């Protein structure tokens, strides 16, 4: 528990919280450019948030404490994960608690409170969004666990900090079929969890096609600000995790201000890269029918399983 480790943790959480809306802005901007528009600039989500903070929160008649508590819990879990997962350094104060299953469970808590809020509104759309969100969340679970199960044997632990550190030190693993299969599986998981195309369309205005949006139709003012902000943070969390597992270069594995700086820069670069891939890719694909999504996730599960097989039989010893 050195000073550096605490500083690292703080830097990391502040960085993720600040970058979240910007990443969303980048995605929108890319889309706008590809569509031949000018776009609102990558800082637009921040402008929206700041404005929302000054607006009036409303809780409708018949709703309960769940509706008010949900955004706070969602934000809390998201930031907790942001501080746990090794994004800029594997030496942060909380590194020894960054167990994968714990991280997944925390993210799941966020999803659950939001679905409960959607049900609490008592509107048809809220219930619909909650039902769809929970369906996807349930089916994502095996995919993500298997994926990281495949990464854990070389590190000998499910602790993300240990896994990332090990992948930094032993670059040979990066070019193995395991990481190839895993990164595809994790990308699918990211799309599903963060509600991006082709699973969910973040820019839709038609309630019947909504998943995530439908749950938050009832929110306004600072509640909405928290929800939107937390969602963007979750996107960074998932993309960043995928990025760090696949390209762990630059993650600081020992103390030092310089290492930390390098870590921050590298993280931003990786995030930009993956974000660009995501943003451009989204322009070319259409949204799936809801009942095609299970196929996608089943595919992710199978890839995860193959990755475990490969990790066990292929890489063992040779990697």
């Amino acid at each position, binding site marked *: 528990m050195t000073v550096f480790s605490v500083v690292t943790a703080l830097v990391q959480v502040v960085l993720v919280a600040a970058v979240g809306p910007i990443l969303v802005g980048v995605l929108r901007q890319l889309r*706008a*450019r*590809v*569509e*031949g*528009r*000018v*776009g*609102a*600039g990558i800082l*637009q989500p921040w*402008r*929206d948030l*700041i*404005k929302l903070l*000054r*607006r*009036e*929160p*409303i809780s409708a008649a018949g709703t309960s404490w769940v509706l008010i508590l949900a955004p706070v819990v969602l934000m809390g879990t998201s930031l907790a994960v942001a501080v746990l997962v090794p994004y800029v350094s594997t030496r942060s104060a909380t590194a020894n608690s960054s167990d994968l299953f714990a991280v997944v469970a925390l993210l799941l808590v966020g999803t659950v409170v939001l679905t409960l809020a959607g049900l609490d509104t008592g509107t048809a759309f809220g219930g619909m969004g909650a039902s769809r969100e929970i369906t996807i969340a349930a089916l994502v679970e095996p995919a993500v666990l298997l994926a990281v199960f495949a990464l854990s044997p070389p590190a000998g632990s499910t602790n993300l900090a240990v896994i990332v550190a090990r992948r930094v030190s032993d670059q040979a693993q990066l070019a193995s079929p395991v990481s190839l299969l895993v990164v595809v599986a994790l990308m699918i998981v990211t799309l599903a969890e963060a509600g991006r195309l082709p699973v969910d369309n973040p820019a*839709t*205005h*038609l*309630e019947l096609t*909504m998943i995530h*949006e439908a749950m938050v*139709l*009832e*929110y*306004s*003012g600072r509640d*909405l600000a928290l929800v939107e902000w937390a969602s963007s943070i979750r996107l960074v969390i998932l993309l960043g995790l995928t990025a760090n597992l696949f390209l762990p270069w630059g993650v600081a594995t020992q103390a030092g201000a310089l290492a930390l700086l390098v870590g921050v820069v590298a993280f931003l670069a990786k995030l930009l890269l993956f974000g660009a891939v995501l943003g451009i890719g989204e322009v*070319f694909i259409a949204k799936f029918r809801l009942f095609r999504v299970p196929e996608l996730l089943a595919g992710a599960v199978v890839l995860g399983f193959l990755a475990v097989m490969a990790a066990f039989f292929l890489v063992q010893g040779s990697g």
Partner: protein
Amino acid sequence: MAGLIRRLRRVGRITEPAPAAPAFEAFTDIARSGSAQVRHVDVGSCNGCEIEIAATFGPVYDVERFGVRLTASPRHADVLLVTGAVTRNLQAPLRHTYEAAPAPRIVIAVGDCARNCGVFAGGHGVVGPVSDVVPVDIEIAGCPPRPAEIVAALRQVTGR
């Protein structure tokens, strides 16, 4: 996909250059915050204004570059974009929508019908202009108004 990319490169940017920013007069504390979420309410329009609004958000006028976005729920909205003369059946829904939007809310009456019932004035089932039902902050003349005018009005709100 390759063809699509080629076409994209050929077309490039098609948005027209932004006209000079209008003179802003602040009328609420959320105006000029560089961001406005818009909920469009049609209370009996002939869909002429809708077409112009669609053009406003299209790639040519691209009002999004000034920080304006359409939203699905009035709970998220700062601006109600009301079109058409208020008909009897949509009087209550308009008021509900106004109530549903968090304060402070800005109402923009788009088109002559919304301002003074236009050609439908005194028509059967017409209650009156939007200002009879909810307080209006900005009015946009024209039947239908040109997208550029709608853009100018929305820029008044976002202040960009």
